[in-house]
């Protein structure tokens, strides 16, 4: 059982305000704790956290007035944040990224253990399939704050310097994710065009999970490793994925 926290991000164009089912399904798989709270951002303000009620939050998303919603525990050992703005309201002028929306998930090690690592990855892949993920990653870290920051690409004020540097470096190709992959990391989401570009290549990975969208999730090693101490095989994967980087 891993002692590492999970951070995951998925980038996509699917408008959750028009069809929130992929997110609702994800909640049903990994937002199962009784003490969850939810909040929402709108274009002008944010709401205070309230007890999580999936039906109410779904209807809020469908109303089209939210730009992001979060479901989390008070101590943030579970965090699920999705962008939910109406597609028509998004400002697509440069330097807006190629993708429209993202999902960020962070889970403490004991939460992963309670849910089961495979179940978490399956739930993320199910979401990625439903929204036709353009890119995404799954990383592990001894620091839950760092795992969450790598997923959300935003953080509190007290990240250590090394984590700040890594967080900024992780975003240098942010605008291009979709055209290129984010990563590679322990887990890397490939879009259908990425998969097509890599046809015939053998990737040095422990597991490949095909996505219904034509994309794939590639898992580098069977066991999680700390994002700050990657094994040498990550460099091999980077070489193999060069056509989509």
């Amino acid at each position: 059982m891993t002692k590492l926290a999970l951070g995951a991000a998925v980038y996509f164009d699917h408008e959750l305000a028009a069809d929130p089912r992929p997110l609702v399904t994800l909640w049903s798989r990994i937002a199962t704790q009784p003490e969850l709270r939810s909040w929402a951002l709108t274009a002008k303000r944010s709401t205070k956290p309230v007890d999580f009620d999936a039906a109410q939050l779904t209807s809020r998303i469908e109303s089209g007035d939210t730009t992001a919603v979060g479901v989390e525990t008070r101590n943030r050992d579970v965090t699920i944040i999705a962008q939910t703005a109406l597609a028509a309201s998004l400002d697509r002028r440069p330097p807006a990224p190629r993708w429209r929306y993202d999902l960020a998930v962070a889970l403490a090690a004991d939460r992963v253990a309670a849910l089961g690592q495979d179940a978490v990855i399956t739930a993320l892949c199910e979401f990625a399939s439903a929204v036709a993920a353009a890119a995404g990653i799954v990383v592990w870290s001894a620091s839950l704050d760092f795992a969450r920051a790598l997923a959300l690409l935003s953080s509190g004020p007290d990240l250590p310097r090394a984590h700040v540097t890594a967080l900024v470096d992780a975003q240098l190709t942010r605008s291009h994710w979709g055209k290129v992959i984010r990563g590679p990391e322990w887990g890397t989401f490939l879009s259908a065009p990425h998969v097509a570009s890599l046809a015939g290549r053998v990737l040095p990975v422990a597991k490949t999970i095909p996505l219904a969208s034509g994309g794939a999730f590639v898992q580098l090693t069977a066991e999680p490793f700390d994002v700050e101490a990657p094994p040498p095989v990550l460099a091999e994967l980077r070489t193999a994925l060069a056509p989509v980087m």
Partner: protein
Amino acid sequence: MGSTARWTAAIVIGLCGVLWADAQGDLDSAKRDYSSAKSKLDDVKYKVDKYLEQSRGLRSFDTEKLNTLIDQLCRLDTEPDDREVDGIVRDLVDKAVDNVKRNYDDTSRTAYDRISDVEHLLDQTKAVRDRAKDLKSQDAVKDEASRLLDDAQKLVDDTDKLMEKTQSDFKSLDNVKQGTMNGANNPTIRAKMEYGKQKHKDLQSSYSCDEREVVLSSGRPDCIKFVQDDCQIIEFKPDTYSTSAAESQARQYLDDVRRKYKDDDRAKKCKQVDGYPFFRTVGVTYTACRS
């Protein structure tokens, strides 16, 4: 036959010319009325602002007393002294009500005058809008009329907002006269609002923000910092909100901020990504007023 056709063509061309001249004349006249209404709006706005300043001044609280209330409600580690809080609140309310009652007749007269000014202006702006709408159906001037219609509609909207603002303030004044203190007129609510504002100011200062609450289409980020290779957008929120919400909100400003500061000399310190400065996004929560 040839001669009849020539005459007919000449008459049609002549008629078109007359119609075009009529439409253009109407459009020019409508444009003049628009300009007049626009400049009147600026004038009325100025007068309304003066009235609002006067009216709010009557309801303002004694700064020292309000600060004591903020200390009692928000800054003490211990439970607030209810009797002291009640005393301060009663005192603040009594003074505000007394002040409003003493100056009510004068102030309400000004309020009625301002409401009447805005009403007249609203009639004028709506008339211009309706004329632009009619002119839009005339081919000769439809493009220009369409632009005028957009401008006139904006004028109507702005005037409507001014009316709402004036009426809402007058209602507040009436409420205070009756001793009803709602929203920011309620000393307890006002103290909490002021505490939040003060906290934001303190944090903006302690984080050495270079820009504070810049107005962007995506909102007003609390703090922007230009630091060598680590420029930041920071959002402050009381801890009654989730830290994740603060972090997410900071992130919502990212592309807008990058666009705004693309050519700003200060942003040359930032890491440059794809030809735009890059900002790290940060969410910070502070201890909210506990009462």
